[in-house]
């Protein structure tokens, strides 16, 4: 290896010949040396023997540009100043077109099965399936930005940790078979769950509230769903409305949480609940209308029949004593079921 200024000076025969040979050897060895040639030209090659990198002078003869790195006997090319050759070293700016994947192949290869211990994304790729005695409180150390997928084939508790295992709503998750979790690496072995879908299709986190959460009425991190909103303490558990004009109280077509309405006399009806209250101390409410009289009419709990967890007798009266059929009524009940 040698370097030469590539400029033949006037000299005697032996000296001139030595200068020509030195220039030819420099060309043959790509100007190999641990330091750059002292005289440079645009598009000149230089193999840096200090770092084993083949370089070329840029068009402006201002900078050396890395072309390839020699590692052992393997040449690894550069692109935009970075080494190519492995997917781990790819970055967005070095890839001008999308990567084409073979049909059915994932980036990491296979879905790695973990039957005991914890999965390690650093060695297992980006998709793992847990079964048997596997756990998922640590996931290995990967670079920040790595996205991993965990399929649960076993029911285990995933413990929230504010640094290393950040779960939605900061609450532990008990997995069920078939759940799928997607985690984002924050580096240094720390992960944040960005999505957790139950086997039944419901999401954990900003998903629907459980019946217990609805009854507790305290969470601000979940939303009520149509099928569970009736569990909220302030939600009416039963109601019915109708008219007496049809001979009535008419069949309770407008009803919720009611199994039947019994007409037991003038201005008295019993509402039977389809779901029993946990206690008879629920809250009846309602209104009624009497269109043909001067005095008003009010619903009240019938005086001789105590409310039970399964039924409540309602009396309609204007003076508290004389029961009268209303033309229209609507009554409801709030309490714990």
């Amino acid at each position, binding site marked *: 290896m040698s370097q030469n200024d590539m400029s033949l000076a006037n000299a005697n025969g032996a000296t001139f010949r030595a200068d020509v040979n030195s220039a030819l050897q420099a060309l043959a060895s790509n100007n190999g040396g641990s330091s750059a040639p002292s005289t440079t030209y645009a598009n000149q090659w230089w193999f840096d023997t200090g770092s084993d990198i083949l370089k070329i002078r840029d068009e402006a003869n201002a900078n050396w540009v890395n072309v390839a790195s020699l590692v052992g006997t393997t040449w690894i090319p550069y692109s935009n100043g970075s080494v190519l050759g492995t997917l781990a070293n790819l970055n967005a700016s070095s890839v001008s077109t999308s990567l084409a994947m073979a049909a059915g192949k994932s980036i990491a290869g296979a879905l790695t099965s973990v039957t005991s211990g914890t999965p390690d994304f650093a060695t297992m790729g980006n998709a793992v399936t847990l079964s048997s005695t596997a756990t998922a409180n640590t996931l290995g150390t990967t670079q920040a930005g790595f996205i991993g997928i965990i399929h649960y084939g076993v029911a285990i508790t995933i413990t929230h940790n504010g640094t290393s295992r950040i779960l939605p709503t900061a609450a532990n998750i008990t997995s069920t078979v078939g759940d799928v979790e997607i985690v984002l690496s924050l580096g240094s072995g720390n992960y944040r769950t960005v999505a957790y879908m139950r086997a039944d299709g419901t999401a954990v986190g900003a998903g629907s509230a459980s019946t217990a959460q609805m009854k507790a009425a305290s969470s601000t991190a979940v939303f009520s769903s149509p099928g*569970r909103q009736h569990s909220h303490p302030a939600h009416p558990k039963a109601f019915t409305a109708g008219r007496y004009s049809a*001979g009535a109280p008419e069949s309770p077509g407008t009803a919720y949480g009611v199994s039947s309405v019994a007409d*037991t006399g003038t201005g008295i009806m019993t509402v039977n609940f389809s779901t029993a209250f946990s206690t008879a101390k629920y809250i009846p409410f309602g209104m009624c209308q009497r269109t043909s009289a*001067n005095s008003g009419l009010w619903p009240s709990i019938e005086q001789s029949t105590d409310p039970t967890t399964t039924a409540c007798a309602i009396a309609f009266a204007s003076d508290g004593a004389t029961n009268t059929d209303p033309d229209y009524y609507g009554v409801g009940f709030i309490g714990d079921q």
Partner: protein
Amino acid sequence: MRAILTTAWNGDVRVTYPAAEMFDAMSSGGYWRDRPRGYLWAQIERQIEAGIDPDHAKRFAYALEFGGLTTAEVYEVLRDRDCARHGKDHDLINPIELPGRWFRDAWSRGHNGGPVWVNLERARVIQRAKIDTAVAEENSRRRGLRKRLYKLDELTIDAGIRNARDDEELRRVWPEQLQRH
């Protein structure tokens, strides 16, 4: 929609109208599907504590939870659960077969059940009470308008009530100047 007729233990007539929701629920089941494990048993226990026969409570709860019932079976379940403990002689009727509600509290049935008829003696008392109420309301209105109070011709009214031969004739006994409601 049909109704369940019951003779209450005190002889009164009770008419129970099933909710339409029950027919869907007892057909398809899953009524308490979002509730925690054991809720079905809690419901059965609560109904029993409320005085419902244990077998009736169980059948009602099972019907809501597991479904599979026909329309006729739904009426049966509701009869047992909502009516049985309140009386006897349960019959499925069309509500249009019932007498008018004017004499609702005079509705009666035979000792062995059957159709509803108006007990005329009880109806006479009801008619007189309704007239008294109408007089009171009319005079309340007149007091507000500072008008002379209405005076009921009691002899004529009482005679009419006493001599009425059926509930239709009895209902027609009413002071001409008073609103009927």
